[in-house]
């Protein structure tokens, strides 16, 4: 210890440079993220008023939370609605985007074109443009269907009802088909994640399996599935967060209106906080359920 006093070892000097690279981000994190976050959380417990030299906050305890949870039925309805929509969309989106990723990962002519096509929704679909377009197309189509879906599967629904399928199943299938546009347009990033994951699997595994005479089915379950499982977890998280934070989500619109109309600072922030806690809980449940079958390469 004595020898090193005043001088840093090579490793410590390296570490200093490492910190140096992080300085701009650290400043931003403390002043433009952590600070506002603390203010936001304080805001949910207070009454905010703008003064001419800044703003003041009076502590009011849990009033904001109680008001929203007991008095705003809209918020409640929107919240449960988006949770249930998510529950049935999550498996569909995950399985579908994995399937598409497997298909466009194969070698065939025009696969670069197909990849370009599937990333297109990532470019176009984020934000207001697609929301406005969707409602505009829906308003224009026959009967001005207000359901906000671009496709309608009336014929399919009729066939299914007449052949005696149970009602729940018919409504599930027709709803899924009607939303096929939404679902496919929501899959862009997920396909991208899976594709990147599939390409990172070393071909040696498959070669070894081929030599041993494994079938495609076996290769999928014994090689692809375990190696892709961390990415599946990422995709699940991403889908949860994305579908909750989507602009077309009703709760998002409520929060947006609360801010846009009369700058109700504490009301909108409290709503967003409750909303975020729900997302957090769902992600936690997912993590707990998934950690059993996720396989990490470098795990000892």
């Amino acid at each position, binding site marked *: 210890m004595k020898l090193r006093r005043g001088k840093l070892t090579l490793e410590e000097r390296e570490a200093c440079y490492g910190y140096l690279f992080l300085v701009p*981000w650290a400043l931003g994190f403390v002043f433009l993220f952590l600070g506002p976050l603390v203010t936001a959380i304080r805001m949910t417990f207070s009454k905010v008023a703008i003064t001419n030299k800044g703003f003041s906050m009076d502590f009011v305890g849990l009033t904001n939370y109680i008001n929203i949870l007991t008095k705003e039925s809209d918020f409640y309805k929107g919240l449960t609605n988006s949770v249930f929509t998510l529950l049935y969309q999550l498996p569909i989106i995950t399985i579908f985007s994995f399937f598409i990723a497997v298909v466009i990962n194969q070698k065939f002519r025009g696969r670069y074109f197909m990849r370009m096509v599937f990333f297109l929704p990532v470019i176009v679909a984020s934000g207001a443009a697609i929301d406005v377009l969707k409602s505009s197309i829906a308003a224009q189509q026959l009967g001005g269907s207000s359901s906000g879906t671009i496709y309608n599967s009336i014929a399919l629904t009729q066939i299914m009802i007449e052949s005696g399928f149970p009602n729940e199943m018919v409504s599930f299938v027709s709803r899924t088909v009607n939303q096929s546009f939404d679902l496919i347009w929501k899959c862009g990033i997920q396909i991208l994640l899976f594709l990147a994951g599939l390409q990172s699997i070393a071909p040696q595994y498959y070669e070894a399996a081929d030599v041993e005479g494994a079938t495609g089915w076996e290769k999928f379950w014994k090689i692809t599935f375990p190696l892709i499982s961390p990415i599946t977890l990422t995709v699940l998280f991403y889908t949860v967060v994305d579908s909750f934070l989507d*602009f077309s989500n009703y709760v998002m619109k409520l929060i947006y209106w609360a801010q846009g109309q009369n700058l109700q600072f504490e009301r909108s922030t409290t709503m967003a906080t409750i909303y975020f806690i729900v997302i957090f809980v769902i992600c936690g449940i997912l993590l707990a359920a998934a950690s059993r079958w996720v396989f990490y390469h470098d795990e000892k």
Partner: protein
Amino acid sequence: MMKSNFFRPLRAKERDIRAVVRFKASSTGWKIFRLFLLLSLCYVVFFPIMFMLSNALRSGLDAVDPTIIWIPKHYTMQNFITVFALLDYPRSFVSTVTISIGSALLQIAVSAMTGYGFAKYKFRFRGVLFALVLFTVVIPQQILVMSLYLKFKFFDMAGFGYLYSLITGQMPNLLDNPLVFFVPSMFGVGLKGGLFIYIFRQFFRGLPNELMSAAKIDGCGHFGIFIKIMLPNAVPAIVSVFLFSVVWHWSEIFYSSVFLSTNQMLSPQLSSLRVQVFRAMTSNTASLMSLFTSESGSIESVIQAGVFLVILPVLLLYLVTQKFFVQGVERTGLVE
């Protein structure tokens, strides 16, 4: 099936036969199915874009003509001209481009630097700090937006705002100024900044350390290595981040509608476009009335022309960069 000799190595001839059989199976049924599947999905992806274009080109007569499905009988550019004026396109375009590209460049600079620090240096709390980076991605904007609004209205960062207020008598107000996007981008906490740091970290981790050592032996400093050696090698990651950042700023409506009170950017105007078009259609002002001629399509045609005008620049950017992007995304290995 054949479980007993499952582990027996196949004889060369057997292997050949199996390979042929599998190849045949995949070559016929699967290929047709795949073609069908991909074509139908192409249709789903292209449908709204083609539909929008087809509608935007229709005149008023065609808008109510049920015999027209895709190709209008009377082409008109009137809808585009109308919405071009309503959106105040040239002005909004310039300010949107300024904000998008300016923030994208700042974000690239900072997140490349931060990502590089995380990827190539070992220091205490690296894991914790990186977890904080990811934390910034998960927190929704909606929680922060109100306190950020107050932050920007009475801006202060490490005492800078107070210094400013000593000189001018009041705190600097950044609202209604592109700075509300530039300042967070400059410090790596802009729109999805954490995600970009993550992408760069993944990319730099994939570059061999020998690149660094070689440059160090030749007497290059730490920042020299980063700028002269690492950045030129990171082009695919830079292009991907640039594209993502521009696109997300372009279609950003949440912060921009709160922080920029006048309709400076293109995307936020879309939300109120229907009201705007309707108001213009029914108004008595001569300048607004002249926007609608006998050629004008329905209100939906005008709206869809507007949507097309807004996403057109992004589409063009994607077409130009897609080659880098498609390859870059695959090589960045966006995920672990």
